[in-house]
């Protein structure tokens, strides 16, 4: 989307509070979805908020871009499956222009030379959809999903809470006790099963319950998407539970937003502006200013200083604390711990402008609008990850593909299409660097696609590949990591992004974090922003 069109208009009737003394209550760094959600929530409580975004448009990595003139696509993130319903409701995002092109996409597991498998978005439809091809799994999968969803349900209840501290106050103890009670209520057998599997790898569990390797591969892909994990890595079962928790809470499977992800960000921006938030795009923050050991505002790359009583950063923890704040303002042991937050992104994004709809072998044209996953088997996925472990890109990458133009005619000229794919593994720490390897990796992706859709190259008008390095450069995310920081048991709840900074506050008074590396974390969820706003509001303004 071009910049002028993406500029959020002033909508709504609420009068924006004016900044009489030139000082804002809160400056939010970055207009990603969490930054906007945070800003809107703060403004609703009467804070005077300014959001400063380096890019020409709002949205961070949730933006719509143009591949070539006439072909628009979600530039980075492309599906939502964990968007907080409370966010949509309370910010009235639909009134501010949010439309879903399609909700609850089924997944088609693709394999070269084999018929695709349909995995229904809802657990209750999962059995019937599989029945014809793998009757045993048709019985086993719903049972497995039902159990995992019970577990995921417990995780989901934690999403809207500020993580409890260990050794904190009574409120912390109450939250911990509630978690304990919910776990206890699972019953002895289920709790035992949860403890048995929660730290393990997703491959073991899938191999224990399911027969079809194609099915296992596609499900395991959900567990490792965006993570530096293979299906046989410990923790990968937990990341799957996490994804299921997000979906369960959103109440619907993967969905496509009309106008691409940028439209969601614009709706968020309009909702924020309607509550009085001032949004400045093209305003790159170069530093967080500190006065008397308290965040006092931000300095823009232009040199302009914006004074604010509180500063909230939507940027990742490394960029915020080491880059914008400067490690001189924090103690050395903390500098070390922040430096060791895992931020090596593994996921690339491929956008294609297509002359016509490609033919995926064996896929019914009616199913082409689904979520197409190329991860045919656990070993396929694990082999793809093996490369990443040693700083190489996958020779046969795994992919999540959508053709959003099938649901949203505004994205491409009539009869033409755009394809959007998340591709793994593309390690941020690629040996030899990405600039030299981009073309070769793109060729590997196209070859992998062509194995399932032989005419894809013939129908491709233009390609656009965003490696983790591109994502880091364009969206200013350390390591180009989709979740700002790895998810996992060791980086969850009171440990996310690091112990001692899990409650959105930093050791520097007046400086807060609200990005995806805060609890509850990654994906287009928006909850970290809302939770952070609650924490910011709890502090009395200086």
């Amino acid at each position, binding site marked *: 989307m071009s910049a002028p069109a993406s500029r959020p208009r002033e909508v709504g009737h609420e009068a924006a509070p004016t900044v009489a003394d030139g000082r804002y209550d809160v400056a939010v760094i970055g207009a990603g979805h969490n930054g906007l959600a945070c800003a809107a929530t703060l403004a609703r409580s009467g804070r005077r908020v300014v959001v400063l975004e380096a890019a020409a448009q709002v949205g961070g990595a949730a933006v719509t871009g143009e591949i070539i003139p006439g072909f628009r696509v979600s530039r980075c993130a492309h599906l939502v499956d964990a968007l907080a319903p409370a966010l949509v409701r309370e910010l009235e995002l639909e009134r501010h222009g949010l439309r879903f092109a399609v909700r609850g996409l089924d997944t088609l597991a693709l394999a070269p030379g084999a018929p695709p498998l349909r995995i229904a978005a809802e657990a209750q439809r999962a059995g019937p959809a599989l029945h014809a091809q793998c009757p045993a799994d048709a019985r086993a999968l719903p049972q497995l999903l039902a159990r995992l969803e019970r577990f995921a349900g417990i995780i989901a209840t934690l999403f809207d809470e500020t993580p409890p501290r260990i050794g904190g106050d009574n409120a912390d103890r109450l939250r911990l006790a509630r978690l304990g009670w919910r776990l206890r209520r699972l019953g002895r057998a289920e709790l035992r099963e949860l403890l048995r599997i929660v730290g393990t790898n997703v491959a073991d569990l899938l191999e224990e319950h399911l027969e079809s390797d194609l099915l296992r591969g596609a499900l395991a892909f959900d567990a490792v998407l965006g993570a530096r994990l293979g299906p046989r890595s410990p923790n990968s079962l937990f990341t799957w539970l996490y994804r299921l928790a997000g979906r369960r809470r959103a109440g619907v499977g993967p969905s496509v937003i009309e106008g691409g992800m940028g439209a969601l960000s614009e709706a968020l921006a309009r909702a924020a502006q309607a509550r009085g938030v001032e949004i400045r795009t093209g305003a790159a923050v170069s530093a967080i200013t*500190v006065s008397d*050991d308290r965040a006092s505002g931000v300095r823009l790359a232009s040199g302009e200083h914006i004074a604010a009583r509180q500063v909230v950063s939507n940027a990742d923890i490394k960029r915020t604390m*080491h880059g914008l704040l*400067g*490690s*001189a*303002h*924090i*103690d*050395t*042991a*903390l*500098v*070390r711990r922040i*430096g060791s937050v895992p931020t090596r992104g593994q996921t690339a994004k491929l956008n294609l402008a297509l002359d016509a709809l490609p033919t995926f072998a064996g896929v019914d044209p009616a199913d082409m609008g689904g979520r197409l996953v190329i991860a045919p088997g656990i070993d396929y996925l694990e082999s793809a990850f093996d490369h990443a472990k040693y700083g190489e890109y996958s020779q046969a990458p795994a992919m999540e593909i959508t053709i959003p133009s099938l649901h949203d005619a505004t994205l491409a000229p009539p009869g033409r299409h755009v394809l959007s794919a998340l591709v793994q593994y593309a390690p941020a720490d690629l040996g030899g660097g990405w600039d030299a390897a981009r073309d070769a990796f793109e060729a590997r992706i196209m070859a992998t696609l062509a194995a399932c859709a032989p005419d894809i190259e013939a129908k491709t008008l233009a390609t656009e590949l965003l490696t983790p390095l591109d994502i880091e450069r364009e969206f200013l995310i350390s390591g180009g990591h989709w979740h700002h920081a790895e998810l996992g048991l060791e980086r969850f709840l009171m440990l996310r992004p690091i112990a001692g900074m899990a409650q959105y506050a930093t*050791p520097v008074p007046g400086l807060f974090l609200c990005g995806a590396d805060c609890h509850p974390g990654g994906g287009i969820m928006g909850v970290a922003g809302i939770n952070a706003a609650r924490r910011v509001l709890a502090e009395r303004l200086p």
Partner: protein
Amino acid sequence: MKEHYRTPLLATPFHTRTQAAGRARVLSRWAGYSTVAVYTDVRLEYAAVRNQASVFDLSPMIKYRIEGPDAVGYLNRLVTRDVDKLAVGRVGYVVWCDDRGHVLDDGTLFRLEGQRFRLCAQDRHLPWLLDSALGFDVDIEEESEAVAALAVQGPSSCAVLRRLGLKHIETLRPFAVAEFAYRDRALTVSRTGFTGDLGYELWLAPSLAEPLWDDLMAAGQHMHITPIGSQALNLVRIEAGFLMPHVDFMPAAAAVRRTRGRSPFELGLARLVDFDKGHFNGRRALLEERRIGSRYRVVGLDIEGNKPARDAWIYYARRKRVGVVTSAMWSPTCKRNLAIATLEAGRESMWTDLWAEIFVNKELKWERIMARCRVVERPFYDPPRRTQTPAPDC
């Protein structure tokens, strides 16, 4: 086949000389080096520091070169003092803390040039120093092996150095550092030391070490210049009231138990903490400590009697245990029974009724003595010559 195991301890640049000196050498290990604890007799060596001139090989001291455009800013982030106020050619006593405000080590900071410093410490800290440098344009390098060091201390130390040919050494002020010409080479001399007496520390290239030792011995012969070991040094440093890491406090990084760390306030070093200079490691924790109060207080004690109160527990009103002695000695110079002790804080009203529980072995019969203690200022011993400038020439 590597041969390193055949030399488990390294030799200092003065090794050939220290090994040849003395008659009844007791060796000890210091930072991986073989050093001398006693050359002949700890009492004679002690007396040399207070009455003549002594030399002590402190080459194993850990030394860092810290240099670059951001050196001052970096050091201000590292240590609790305001390094801006340390002039070129001056030496400052500094401590640096971890995130909890607990002291990692103490040391001396030499400002050799505007943006070039040397930090001397007891323990090794390179990873901490490097990690603290993120965002600063500064070069940090350990130079322990590249710099040999020798302390020349005692009432005659200035006279010895003058005879060595160091011109105008007597005008060097306490805590000043300057370069002197010696054998056509540069010899860095600071008027610093661990003895609390008139004295100097000499910093030099290792190749100069042996000639310097020989020249010093020749120049000081008529004053009975005496090599001293670490045991004698420990006695004079107690008299001087200096704290010894690992003895009087546990450096935070070496403590296994989190509560064993001690803050600068707890060590009685509040004067070294400058809250007005901007952020430094531990600042927020120390501000919080200042708000809620410290847990401990390190004090100097003057104890009745003449039995050293080594490892003694300190009691309030003879009954309630409130602290422990970490260093103790009978001071032949002060004629006082001295100790450095850690007391529980917040009990200053009790300081008037403190008792040390001293166990004395009297010909294989242990006796328990309850000796009255007075909290006194340190240094216990502070002769005027320590700070006199020009330094006395005797």
